[in-house]
């Protein structure tokens, strides 16, 4: 290592609202005010038997609320607070101008208007469908799924409808590698499939023999992330496609790791039949503390008639919505998370071909540079935009808690479990070399510390280590439960 630096532990003390020596946490809204209003009565517009008796809610002034939520925000770590290398989540900077584009007044329209009055909205959707198709090497795209898991659900429902259409409704199994995202398993089950898990090979990739053994005339689809959750490109992807297609199954691409491949490889060229895009990962729309995201689905031509309704297309006299011939119907009450899609469009337009290619190049560069400097072993490679290190003798969850004290967001931990004490790390392209050096110093410092120190961490955050058992044993989900 060159340019070793000491972790500073400065610049990041979360707000704790110290009052004297005691931390004074931000009270709940209900602890600030509870106002009860009678409902109905002689002045009300409805007969009493149609109304409730009263309503009790906090009632605060605007300045009080501004302080409340500002304080809460100061007890929360965002991408602009510091590095956020949460593996598998692609925590990129969210460009500010995309927020302004989504806030343009003309974007706030109701979906039940006739197509002729919505030409701008439909045109933007048509462009985004087209962009995504090109980026993924797919023929057609649906923008409707409101998240990645919803995209998976659409993809598997489309596969199911396709098989049924071809009188192959007997196919009852979806194959998933052991290293896959939990959503893959859950989605296949939600769609009514038996989930067949295949173990990874020693090198962390798909075990072709295991896949061959699992694949059969009962196989509806094989769901795969590429590069996989270890960051490894599935070099045998063409052989994988041959096995799956050979038994009449479809190959599903989980788009969670697409940020590794922009402009370098496309799922459609690898033999994938259907894929979802996580626009809140790859295309930098904000994660919003858990959502909303969007999970558009791309398909090859033969699957297009089964996509959700409606889709958008251009005709001689403008843009229109239409229902694909054998559509699976809908997976969202309307047409998905529209404002998120606008932001994704703006981001893709900002980067263009060269910018997209560069984003992946820098994401891969950053992951490789960081891995070189963290001191923890990375058992599998060559990896791309993320790597999974092993915390070795240390507890990965404790490592993460201690990293909080060094002012950075830790990696995803203890998953995938084919690496023991996994530290799944994805710095994304937005980190500078300087910032990566800081991050590496934090890893390095924690690696040198003893178990006792780690177990006692964190101590510089808003809350100290939180008792998960207590939360689960006595679930209290609202302020009403605290009053008891």
């Amino acid at each position, binding site marked *: 290592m060159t340019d070793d630096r000491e972790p500073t532990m400065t610049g990041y003390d979360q707000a704790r609202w110290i009052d004297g020596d005691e*931390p004074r946490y931000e009270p*709940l*809204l209900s602890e600030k005010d509870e*106002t009860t209003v009678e409902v109905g009565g002689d002045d009300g*517009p*409805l007969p009493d038997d149609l109304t409730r008796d009263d309503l*009790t*809610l906090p009632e605060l002034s605007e300045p009080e609320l*501004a302080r409340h939520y500002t304080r809460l925000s100061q*007890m929360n*770590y965002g*991408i*602009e607070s510091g590095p956020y290398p949460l593996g598998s989540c692609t925590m990129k900077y*969210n460009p500010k101008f995309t927020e*302004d584009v989504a806030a343009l007044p003309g974007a706030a*329209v*109701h979906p039940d*208007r*006739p197509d*002729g*009055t919505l030409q*701008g909205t439909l045109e933007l959707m048509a462009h985004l469908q087209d962009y995504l198709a090109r980026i993924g090497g797919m023929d057609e795209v649906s923008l409707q799924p409101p*998240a990645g*898991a*919803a995209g*998976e659900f659409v993809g598997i429902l489309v596969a199911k409808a396709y098989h049924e259409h071809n009188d192959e409704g007997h196919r009852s199994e979806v194959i998933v590698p052991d290293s896959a*995202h*939990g959503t893959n*398993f859950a*989605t296949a089950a939600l769609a*009514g*499939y038996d*989930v067949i898990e295949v173990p990874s090979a020693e090198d962390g990739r798909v075990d072709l023999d295991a896949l061959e053994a699992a694949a059969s005339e009962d196989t509806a689809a094989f769901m795969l992330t590429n590069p996989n959750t270890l960051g490894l490109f599935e070099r045998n992807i063409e052989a994988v496609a041959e096995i799956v297609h050979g038994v009449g199954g479809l190959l599903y691409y989980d788009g969670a790791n697409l940020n590794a491949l922009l402009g370098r490889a496309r799922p459609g060229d690898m033999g994938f039949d259907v894929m979802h895009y*996580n626009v809140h990962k790859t295309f930098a729309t904000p994660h*919003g503390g*858990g*959502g909303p995201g969007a999970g558009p689905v791309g398909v090859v031509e033969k699957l297009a008639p089964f996509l959700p309704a409606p889709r958008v297309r251009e005709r001689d006299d403008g843009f229109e919505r239409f229902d694909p011939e054998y559509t699976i119907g*809908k997976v*969202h009450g*309307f047409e998905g*998370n529209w404002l998120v899609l606008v932001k994704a469009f*703006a981001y893709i337009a*900002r*980067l263009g071909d060269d910018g997209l290619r560069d984003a992946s190049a*820098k994401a*891969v*560069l950053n992951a490789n540079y960081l891995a070189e400097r963290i001191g923890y072993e990375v058992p599998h490679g060559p990896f*791309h935009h993320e790597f999974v290190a092993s915390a070795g003798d240390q507890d990965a969850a404790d490592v993460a808690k201690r990293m*909080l004290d060094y002012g950075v*967001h830790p990696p995803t931990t203890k998953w995938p479990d084919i690496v023991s004490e996994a530290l799944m790390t994805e710095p994304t392209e*937005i980190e500078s070399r300087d910032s990566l050096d800081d991050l590496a110093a934090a890893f390095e410092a924690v690696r040198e510390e003893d178990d006792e120190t780690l177990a006692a961490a964190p101590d510089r955050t*808003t*809350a100290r280590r*939180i*008792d998960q058992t207590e939360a*689960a044993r006595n*679930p209290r*989900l*609202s302020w009403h*439960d605290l009053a008891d």
Partner: protein
Amino acid sequence: MTDRYHQAGGTPFAPHTEAETAAMLDAIGAESEVDLFDIPESVAFDGEFGIDARTEREIREECGRLFGENDDLVEFLGRNHHGHYVPSLVDHLADRQEFLTSYTQYQPEITQGFLQALFEYQSILAEVTGLGVPNASMYDAATALGEAATLAARLRQVDGTRVLVPELLCPGRRSVLDNYVAGTDLVVETYPTADANVDVDALADAADDDTVMIYAENPTVRGTIEEHLADIGRIADDAGALFCLGSDPVALAILEEPASVGADVVVGDASVLGMPTSYGMGLGLFVTREEFIRQVPGRLVGVSTDDAGNRAYTLTLQTREQHIRRERATSNICTNQAWVALRTAIHAAMLGASGLVDLAETCVREAEALAADLDSIDGIDAPIHDRHHFREFVARTDRRAAAVRDDLLEAGFAVHVVGDHEVQVCVTERTERRTDDLVAAFEEAAR
């Protein structure tokens, strides 16, 4: 446009200078960025997408032009997507980067702020529904309904396959429900409605031991207020089925409390607070009873204590979720609508109990007043259902409804067509000042 950090053609959102890139490659021991990719030649992509990069200013102009192509209409539209006025405070606070750019609270020690906000959101839902287990969000009302059906399937003690829904139900909501039960043995069937509300006698006849869930809405998709909720609750109880009620937090501010009429699950669109009209983007509210807590889909924020003995918030009961339970999870949902839930909580807190009740009463009064005004026009009957209404109502038009709709569009107003001679009109505090203009336009269009 180039500067130190934005090299021509690169992403403007990566900070690397050429010198830094070279030094980093050197540290790794790689010749070039391309060498870092382990992609077989046969599947490598060396083509172009053909997407031109634009500047920030150009994209803002482009999108401004695109949205300018949307007709400038006053929307009297609802039917499961309602845009109330959202105070500026909501945008400014929710857009703080600590909220907007963070992700799921896997590290609760540094995300107490968002966790508390979600806990407060859950608390507001618990208050308006009277039920004890609210989750931290689903995608929208339709997917929340689908999740409720799968909850019913998991909870059933004995066999049972029927999910009963009203014959008047938004087709989109029905389609989503059908897809969510596609992987189960559940069958969705409709029961009759009477004057837009539940036909209670017909429902009692339809419900049997094989029924696992009965779904009803209040207000209904046609804006009518349900009058026999407690009876529906009893019918569900007698059948051993869950009573799932669809509503929203504005309506629930004044309408009968779901818990008091026997509702077991409440679903609906909570984004009526916090979000403007957004082309159907919503927030699925999902609240159920304490006894079902281990079977709930989605994330739950709970309370615990930290090592210093202080109250702390955390995601809890995660063993229900896909990242742990995989194919045996209660749902496949991961990314949800947390940021919209934050917005909903801020908006609700700003209105407070009295503001929320005022807003809800306005939705009743304005609908009633507008219906009466339209009813006075020759060629229009409004409302056609002899019920109380919330936000919206259906009117009968002597002319073909589509022709009336088109004439109204010409005059700058949008309404729904729901039958050959039926239009649906939705009015809230956002459009109340334009109702006189709408009535004038209807006078022309109704002829």
